[in-house]
């Protein structure tokens, strides 16, 4: 139920999992859908946050009627996992409002549109809450009741915006839409000046598309690995011509050579009316910024060096050692993604002044205990007073965690003069590290 507080919702449905709404993702999804819908019409407009306008008047013949287009669009949406409210109407705003009201119908004439609009509640257009409240106060619940009022009187009460919207929706004011710019994916099409019945005849027209593609790839610094040439036949059907490049390329000449090879073997099922070309798989151009190893980029330092090492040895083989603020010796350093060392500020220096060996044993090694204390290659002489470390309860009992430590650490000396870092805990004495 919209409008519930989270606590109420949880009270009603204990165990409900709440997710934050992500407007950025919604916008991306809408743009993707817009790109995809380019396959139905070149004229697509976004109506954020959740609307998409497809100008299908021009391509109705291409698909064999409005119903066919609608069916194809809905089918496509369904396959992609979208559930959509839709309507087809002569004006963009009319179609949007009817879709929002869940009309799911086609209104081909203006008269049909206006009749349908008259029946819509005033809450359907996304007018400001203040306007909606005001209309409610007037008792004007449906758009029809609204249009029945004198426009001048309305303008003085709810402003020009809603009144103009109404006129646009009814087709009484022009309502040009800003076309969607297909930014990320190449899908271009063109209608042939006349029907083409032989495959070889397509090459000339296709050249324009491939030219555009080459230019676009240039802008994108990309190479094409797989593309599709879509042929739209005069009976509304279409066939696809997949183009695969063993070595990705961006060269118009090579495109055309490959195309000609394909076309020479292609038997057209029906005359072709239109062509469209889609770039399906791209790879980034490797020499995008500079020649590889030919000349060192100015300022290339450790980062690039690490990049190359990782490229050759594998990501996991190159790690950085970072100090980590934790009292537990086992957790006081961490193997890190080396990329981080340039981003993060230098690690804390809080360990300064504490006796800490450079090398810790992978795991503390139990020491024998005799009457005179711990032994490691002979008796150990304790050099410092115990340093007590008790920390880490927060991850005790968890898998592969260090857990709560309770130890007294000592610096000790062996008979040979080797310095060791040892500790005592409930289990006894352990060697934990050696000083260089």
């Amino acid at each position: 139920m919209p409008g519930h507080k989270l606590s109420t919702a949880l009270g009603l449905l204990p165990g409900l999992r709440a997710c934050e709404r992500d407007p950025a993702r919604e916008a991306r999804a809408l743009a993707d859908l817009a790109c995809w819908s380019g396959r139905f019409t070149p004229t697509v407009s976004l109506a954020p946050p959740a609307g998409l306008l497809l100008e299908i008047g021009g391509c109705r013949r291409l698909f064999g009627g409005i119903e066919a287009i609608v069916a194809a669009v809905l089918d496509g949406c369904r396959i992609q996992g979208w559930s959509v409210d839709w309507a087809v109407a002569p004006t963009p705003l009319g179609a949007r409002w009817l879709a929002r009201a869940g009309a799911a119908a086609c209104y081909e004439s203006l008269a049909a549109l206006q009749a349908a609009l008259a029946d819509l509640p005033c809450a359907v257009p996304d007018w400001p809450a203040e306007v909606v409240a005001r209309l409610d106060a007037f008792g004007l619940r449906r758009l029809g009741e609204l249009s029945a009022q004198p426009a001048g009187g309305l303008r003085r009460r709810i402003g020009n915006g809603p009144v103009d919207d109404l006129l646009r929706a009814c087709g009484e004011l022009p309502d040009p839409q800003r076309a969607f710019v297909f930014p990320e994916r190449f899908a271009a099409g063109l209608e042939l000046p006349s029907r083409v019945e032989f495959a070889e005849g397509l090459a000339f027209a296709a050249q324009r598309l491939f030219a555009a593609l080459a230019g676009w790839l240039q802008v994108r610094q990309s190479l094409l690995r797989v593309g599709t040439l879509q042929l739209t036949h005069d009976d509304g059907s279409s066939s696809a011509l997949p183009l695969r490049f063993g070595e990705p390329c961006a060269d118009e000449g090579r495109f055309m050579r490959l195309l000609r090879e394909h076309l020479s073997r292609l038997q057209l099922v029906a005359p072709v009316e239109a062509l469209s070309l889609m770039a399906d798989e791209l790879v980034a151009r490797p020499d995008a910024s500079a020649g590889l190893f030919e000349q060192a980029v100015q300022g290339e330092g450790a980062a690039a060096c690490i990049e190359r090492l990782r490229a050759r040895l594998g990501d996991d083989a190159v790690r950085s050692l970072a100090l980590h603020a934790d009292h537990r010796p086992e957790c006081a350093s961490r193997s890190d993604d080396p990329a981080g060392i340039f981003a993060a500020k230098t690690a804390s220096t809080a360990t300064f002044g504490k006796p800490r060996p450079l090398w810790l044993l992978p795991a503390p090694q139990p020491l024998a205990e005799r009457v005179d204390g711990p032994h490691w290659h002979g008796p150990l002489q304790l050099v410092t007073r115990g340093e007590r470390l008790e920390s880490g309860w927060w991850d005790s009992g968890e898998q592969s965690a260090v857990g709560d430590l309770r130890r007294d650490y000592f610096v000790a000396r062996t008979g040979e003069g080797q310095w060791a870092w040892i500790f005592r805990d409930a289990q006894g004495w352990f060697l934990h590290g050696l000083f260089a």
Partner: protein
Amino acid sequence: MLHQAHTLPDYAELHCLSNFSFLRGASHPEELAAQAVAQGYAALALTDECSLAGVVRVHQAFRALEKSADLTVDRENGAKMPRLLIGSEMRTVDGLKLVFLAQNREGYGNLSALITLARRRAEKGAYTLQRHDLNAISPNGALPDCLVLWVPEATPSVADGRWLAERFPGRCWIAVELHAGPDDAARLADLQALGAACGLPLVAAGDVHMHVRARRPVQDVLTALRLKTSVFDAGHALFPNGERHLRSRLRLARLYPPELLAETLRIAEKCTFSLDELRYEYPEEIVPAGHTPTSWLRHETEAGLRRRYPAGVPDAVRERIEHELRLIAELSYEAYFLTVYDIVCFARGAGILCQGRGSAANSTVCFALGVTEVDPARSAMLFERFVSKERGEPPDIDVDFEHERRDEVIAYIYEKYGRERTALAAAVITYRTKGALRDAGRALGFDIARIDALTASLAWWDKREQMPERFAEQGLDPASPRVAKWLWLAEQLRGFPRHLTQHVGGFVMSRGPLARLVPVENTAMAERTVIQWDKDDLDAVGLMKVDVLALGMLSALRRMLAIIGESCGRPQNLSEIPEGDAATYDMLGRADSMGVFQVESRAQMSMLPRLKPRNYYDLVIEVSLVRPGPIQGDMVHPYLKRRQGKERIEQITPAIDAVLARTCGVPIFQEQVMQLAIVAAGFTPGEADELRRAMAAWRRKGNLARYQDKLRAGMARNGVPAAFIERIVAQIQGFGEYGFPESHAASFALLVYASAWIKRHHPAAFLCGLLNSQPMGFYSPSMLIQDARRHGVSVLPADVTASDWDSRIDEGGAVRLGLREIKGLRREIALNIAVDRQIRPFSDVADLAARCALGRRELDLLAAADALRSLAGHRRQAAWQVADSGRRAVQGDLFAGLPAPEAAVELAAPTLADNLVADYRQLGHSLRPHPLTLLREHLAARRFLSAGELAQRGDRALVRVAGIVTGRQRPGTATGIVFVTLEDETGWTNVVVKPALVEKQRRELLSAPLLGVYGQLQASDGVVHLVAQRLVDLSAWLGRLETSSRDFH
């Protein structure tokens, strides 16, 4: 152990923080006290950061431990009680960390004043100590009569040490705090060198943050919370080990050189101050020149007596007055009575209704002074019960004032005594379940959404035991290590103090500067200050406070009396309301009590027909009986049965019978329990008072057993039958903290009667008074209006041509609702309308808008609320008219008032349903037919009955009822039951939903605005409940109707 005790070095801990150093200390003061005893310390200094908020608790804990049996054993073995030293840790803005210790009363005053200085100049919860605050103010150096420990940082500066040595000659030490760090030996050597260089001696100290090592996780969590991070990311900000606890002397002996430990004792010996030395001194100005407090109290009491008894003071009263005045003089309580009296006099003079209640308030002296209207002759109460020689604690008088005018009283107090001498008592805000879960979760790094989801899913009735279930519902496995830690830590945090806030109204006033008695700090409200002690602390050290409380019913009563006075010249004073009115008691006996003070709740309404009060004292009982205490102590049913004569009142012993006679042999009041302890079990009055405190606290501390044993033994000795003893003991336990004192009930009962009398005889004034005092009470204006209409009051809608801001009674005796009922309308606007209308009636909306300078928002509100109907027709037409922006553009200029040239528009008139929707949305009520009348046919077809029809069905009938949910309530006393109130056009139905159904139909219960209930009737003694068997959500039938329910927690 015994052997060790003699060989171990003695030790005094001089640096110790409790959890009153918020988000630092991880132990309660009481825990520290007990641990200091267990470790055999010679002294414990509580040195919370810039605070003395915890000291009284340690003081109290030591006192209690001294009495307890196990210590006596130890004492025979030579163990002594540790002494409490009072001190405070403070850090100057440039990082000097110091611990101050008070040597004597002077030093304590200086320290308290220093804390106040540092606190008052910072915002709530913070403090600022400048170095120059420590400049010498006397020939003896800075902060006289205090010792100071310097806690040097890692690399201390010799200059700082010399600076301190100069300011605290012979009174400054370097604190050596060794915690088994990386190199304690080196640290000690460094500090020794530092001491030599600055000429400062060294002393051992512990920097204690917890009473035992095991609190380390809690301390880590507090640290993480303080730094607004998690324990995973807190890193080296966490202490490396758990050494900062009250360590054993054995451990200390291993860590410290003996001379440093011995030095702690020398310092402790120099500090002789005890909180027992604090003496409270009353303000002087309450007594005019030439009088002593005793003579002035006598003077004013006599004057009051002449007013109360114009025909002469009866002998009994005279005798009682003399007795009370003697007792007051012996205890030197005159000034307290006079302070209260002074405030009450101010309120009277300002026309603010007020009434005293509580222990001393119902004395004959207070009756004479006019602090209360409870005539002691009318009830069986005795003054001694409230003021006793033995208890040695201050008397307690709470004074209730009109809730909207209490600020005037507070301003008067501040003005009269000055800010330096007045402050509010503190209230300690402690962690409750949700807060503890939230903070523990945060410190353990759970993401905020997860934590919020969990805490939000806790319904207001969930118990602690259900916590693991709630975790599981959120997909958190209570058995997983991380979640188990979360639960454990939350449990630990519960009850930890979080911050100090102001007590609801407890004022402390002193003769000299208050800050020398107890530190004063800022609150969130700029003009208020609080002391660092709460009510219990004040009691413990014998400081007095006057409770200045706010009571909505007093505001309502004053308004009702004024309206009655205006319209018929009859009573305008509470005391003028005739006593013992049978019609009023008849009404209460029918549970016809909506809006009446105290007895309007659902539980009270079901009690009234059973109790059938016939006199004032019955009301005192009614007020006290429907409380968690008597209900859980199982006192209600025995009392009712005996009262109705269904059960015999047993005779126990003459002494007990005398105590319980007025309540049919069942103890109902807190005072009776204490009285029983005295007469039947041989308690002294002082012990009885301890019992009362133990009862109040046993849920928290659980130390009632000692008193129970004593009660049993005492009563058995006096020949009380065993069965009665066990019943009494069980009742006292059930009573717990919820026992209601008769002394408060006696004052409340007066207001119950007064408000009931007005409801019975002046229902229109009653409605106006309540509406004009909203928000208050149990019921919404909508319910109050419906109730009044059913009592024959005619109610007219808010209308700009007739309404004022407040509701009032018009010439015809009808209630004209005020413009205040319009949601969102500002008071000044309504006042303007009322004033301008007096000059000349409004000709139309344009005239109204121009003359009252109404903006678009106000006009919209008025139109939507249908308050323009007299000027502009129905609300749609009005909305259309006021919405015209063209006219507003010329408003106020030459053309003002000229109608804009525009074709008239004919908008369809709203239907009844439309109007109801708009009424509820804009006003919260409607005077039109109830929404359910629209659905009645529909409902009847599905055999849903109305509330009115229900009353005619008998007990155990199976019925269906539908209504708008106007209340959901889950009293803490009724295990798991939810009470729902349904409203229809005929009245209200009380529905009982049992726990099993609550769980099964949680959604319908919590969310359906229109609820259908299938269930069985329970009718007895005129009380009708419907026990629900099935709930159905009928909200779809309502369409667009919006209603609101009030959930009472």
